[in-house]
């Protein structure tokens, strides 16, 4: 793993890409190699500002990242974007089209974009994204963004591993307020109503004020930070510079108020636990003596012959060798 580690530390794009593939691999020997690699790189990680971004499909996440990415790069920083794309449940394959929407970033030497298929396990994605983030830091990126489609529990995971969590919204009143889970709004450190351009501008402003009101009823993530609601047009580039200022302000806030370090420590703990749970599940699947029992129990649950909780307990007890 030494050559790969050296490649990464010298800022080599190809090495970073190969390392990410390794981290994402489902093979256990790859897993070990990845652990080895990460152990070597750990001293060189932790230096970036980590931003999570989510929003419903069609809200303009990629266009937004492209616009704010240009601002970040213009200020002399290097940006890595990790985009998690949903995979088709049916085939397992996916179409990763993000770069088609980040044309200028894909051409910029100071940017790196890596779309990742979500695969079938959501927990796995979070673990891999976290490790990928570390790899990007070791390669020398100053800002790392993790983008997810706002469809479910992956948001919580992403919020759990970043320093700041952005929620992107479309202009449009209460319908969306209902549609987006309250839980996701609670996670956000900054809410942004995109597409504030042309005929939609007024609506976007109104939407922003609706959210401001709604936020008053929610409990903020940090007692001393009330998440602002901003508007912008990623398409036209308006409001983007202001947003970067808000983001920087938040960064100062977390760093000055002793929020940053404890949050990161907590994240390392979460990372450990997600590795444990993933490892356990994998071990369970791989245990040959369990295979029969698993498929039988699954069938029993499916046919309604066995309550799910009983089934789960029975499997766990057998696996762990606990006799009743």
């Amino acid at each position, binding site marked *: 793993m030494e050559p790969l580690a050296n490649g990464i530390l010298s800022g080599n794009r*190809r090495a970073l890409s190969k390392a990410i*593939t390794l981290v994402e*691999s*489902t*093979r256990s020997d790859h897993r070990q190699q990845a652990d080895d690699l990460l152990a070597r790189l750990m001293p060189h990680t932790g230096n970036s500002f980590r931003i999570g971004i989510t929003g419903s499909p*069609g809200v303009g996440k990629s266009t937004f990242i492209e616009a704010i990415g240009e601002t970040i790069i213009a200020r002399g920083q290097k940006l890595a974007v990790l985009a998690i794309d949903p995979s088709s449940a049916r085939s397992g*394959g996916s179409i990763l089209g993000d770069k*088609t929407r980040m044309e200028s970033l894909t051409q910029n030497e100071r940017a*790196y974009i890596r779309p990742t298929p979500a695969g079938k396990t959501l927990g796995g994605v979070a673990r891999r994204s976290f490790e990928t983030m570390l790899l990007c830091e070791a390669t020398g990126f100053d800002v790392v963004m993790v983008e997810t489609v706002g469809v479910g529990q992956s948001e919580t995971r992403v919020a759990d591993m970043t320093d700041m969590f952005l929620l992107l919204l479309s202009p449009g009143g209460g319908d969306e307020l209902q549609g987006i889970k309250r839980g996701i709004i609670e996670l956000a450190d900054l809410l942004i109503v995109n597409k504030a351009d042309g005929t939609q501008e007024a609506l976007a402003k109104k939407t922003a004020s609706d959210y401001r009101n709604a936020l008053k009823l929610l409990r903020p993530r940090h007692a001393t930070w009330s998440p602002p609601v901003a508007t912008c047009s990623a398409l036209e580039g308006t409001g983007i510079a202001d947003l970067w200022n808000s983001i920087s302000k938040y960064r100062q806030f977390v760093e000055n108020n002793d929020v940053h370090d404890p949050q990161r420590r907590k994240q390392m703990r979460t990372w450990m636990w997600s590795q444990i749970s993933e490892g356990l599940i994998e071990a369970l699947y791989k245990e040959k003596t369990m295979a029969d029992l698993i498929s039988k129990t699954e069938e029993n649950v499916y046919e309604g012959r066995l309550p799910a909780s009983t089934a789960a307990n029975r499997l766990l007890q057998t696996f762990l060798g606990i006799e009743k």
Partner: protein
Amino acid sequence: MTENKNKKPSLTDWQQLATKELRGKPLSDLDRATYEDITTKPLYTSQDLEGIEHHQSLPGFEPFLRGPRATMYAGRPWTIRQYAGFSTAKDSNAFYKKNLAAGQQGLSVAFDLATHRGYDSDHPRVIGDIGAAGVAIDSVEDMKILFKDIPLDKVSVSMTMNGAVLPVMAGFIVAAQESGVAIEQLNGTLQNDILKEFMVRNTYIFPPAPSIRIVSDIIGFTAQNMPKFNPISISGYHMQEAGATAVQELAFTIADGLEYVRTAIDRGMQVDDFAPRLSFFFGIGMDFFMEIAKLRAARLLWSQLMEEKFSPKDPRSKMLRTHCQTSGVSLTASDPYNNIMRTTIEAMASVLGGTQSLHTNAFDEALALPSEFSAHIARNTQIVLQEETGITRVVDPLGGSYYVEALTNEIATKARALILEVEELGGMTKAVQEDMPKRRIEEAAALRQARIDRGEEVIVGVNKYLHDDGNEIDVLSVDNAQVREAQIERLTQIKNTRDNKACQKALNALKTGAENDANLLELSIEATRARASVGEITATLEQVFGRYKAINSTISGVYGSVYEGDEEFEKIKVEIDRFAVETGRRPRMLIVKMGQDGHDRGARVIATAYADLGFDIDIGPLFQTPAEAVRQAIENDVHMIGISSLAAGHKMLVPALMDELKQQEASDILVICGGVIPPKDHQQLLDIGVAAIYGPGTNIPKAAREMIQMIKQNATT
């Protein structure tokens, strides 16, 4: 027959007889569902015309269903208008003159992709595109060479141009004026249909709103100064090429037309001042009666909708006149002489549908740009129809046919519903911004591709009756690099000899005009006269309008759904799942389109199909350079790059990509090519390390299996 001689057999009698012939199978077994979601029956009778009135109408009168002119081909046959452009203005000029002498009545210019996208030949992004898919035009000097010794006051000129319409139209006007032809004498057609570019062809430059403004500026200018010129050709052709059904093509095209009319009226024009000069352009594929009915339904719908929405006084404002082209996607690379028959049949459908002018494709177009020989056969196809068959003797010869009239009615009804959907979204500009038409067309395309791959739709020589006699046909090849050098030389010369101050002043005026509300064609004409180039005029406008970036939502699941339960398909999916377990991830492929070729139907259908099989597919942005594509392949760490090439750019771009891979020490990434690549170029590509070439008509599941093998082998070496 045992029936009573005096009793006329009834429909029930026929049903009984038919059921008997079917030996007990239900008659509904003979019903067929088309891609348009129309069910055809084995027999149509007068009963099917009940409640339909339009077939009682007469040609030359509203709603023009039976033809825009009273005498149609009986009076004068359709115009034979072959679309062509050969690399350089000089070669194209020679070709046009020869064709005019050989009986062609109008000429139709194909530009290269660099010109379409508003780049001069010296621009670094267009190295592989110069002169590849048509003629390269950088300035009015090129235009003058293009039309040298062609009487522009007599010959009508059709120009397929949408993105760089302003500098190209200005170049045409100035070239004519400088050769002594007055502007009002010019006749012909400019394609100028930007909305469909955002849906399917992607040769746009500016965002939708300023693009539409340019369209209406041109409509306004021609309405005042060029009474014989059609300022726009509202085109469905490219939608059909991208996989649209007849109903989609019809509906989206008419909806585009309505949007242009609305824009022009909003900019202060009177409907009757410009609507009579709007023209249309449809593609004609192999579904013979469907295509005939489509053209008839188009005239009906346009007439009705123009009346409903804008109540023009001049009946010509409601009269749909159209050009047609036989289908390019229906042509096959294997057994290519079959394409001559296909084109003939499609040409007949165009004519029976009542087109005003026609382009017939050359049989080798699935392999390369037409050669002189294939272009000759294509043109003669029309001459034979006009002069040997007697088809021209009678107006709308299928009028009153139970089937054709019922089908016309059904297409019109379905298209009207889709138009309504677009109008409810707020018109075509809005619908395009929401990506609705593009997604619908892609779904249709993926569905059709899957049915072809399964053999449910037969294509002779491709998925049935395969025939390979090993004979290769001679195709045209273009020496890109040489054309590029010559263009750059002329461009440099112009820039060195012109009055730079005057040129800059004209460009500044153009910029100010774009920021305000001036007519941009007028200002572009002045800039062109001052020898500003196509690229300079475009760059000036770009400063104000910006360059458009496509939204690119992709669909999934459509292709796979056709294979629901297919054993072979499931087997490959299992194989891919096994690959994922063995190697730790799914096979990952980057699909790239390099150069200015925006035809992405193939690339997108393939993306969907492979994702449905279980691949992880990355899609590159349109118009990538080889270096950008390689960088993306490296960043995403793909196993394989799939290059889709349809516009003859492969000769420079593929080697450039292979070189770049080498330079980046990433030659372990496999490269395959797909699209229109002449067989004689295959060896050359294989020699530089391309792993495989998949032409049109490739069976996707079969190719997927081969690709998995290649990736596995590559990993072990």
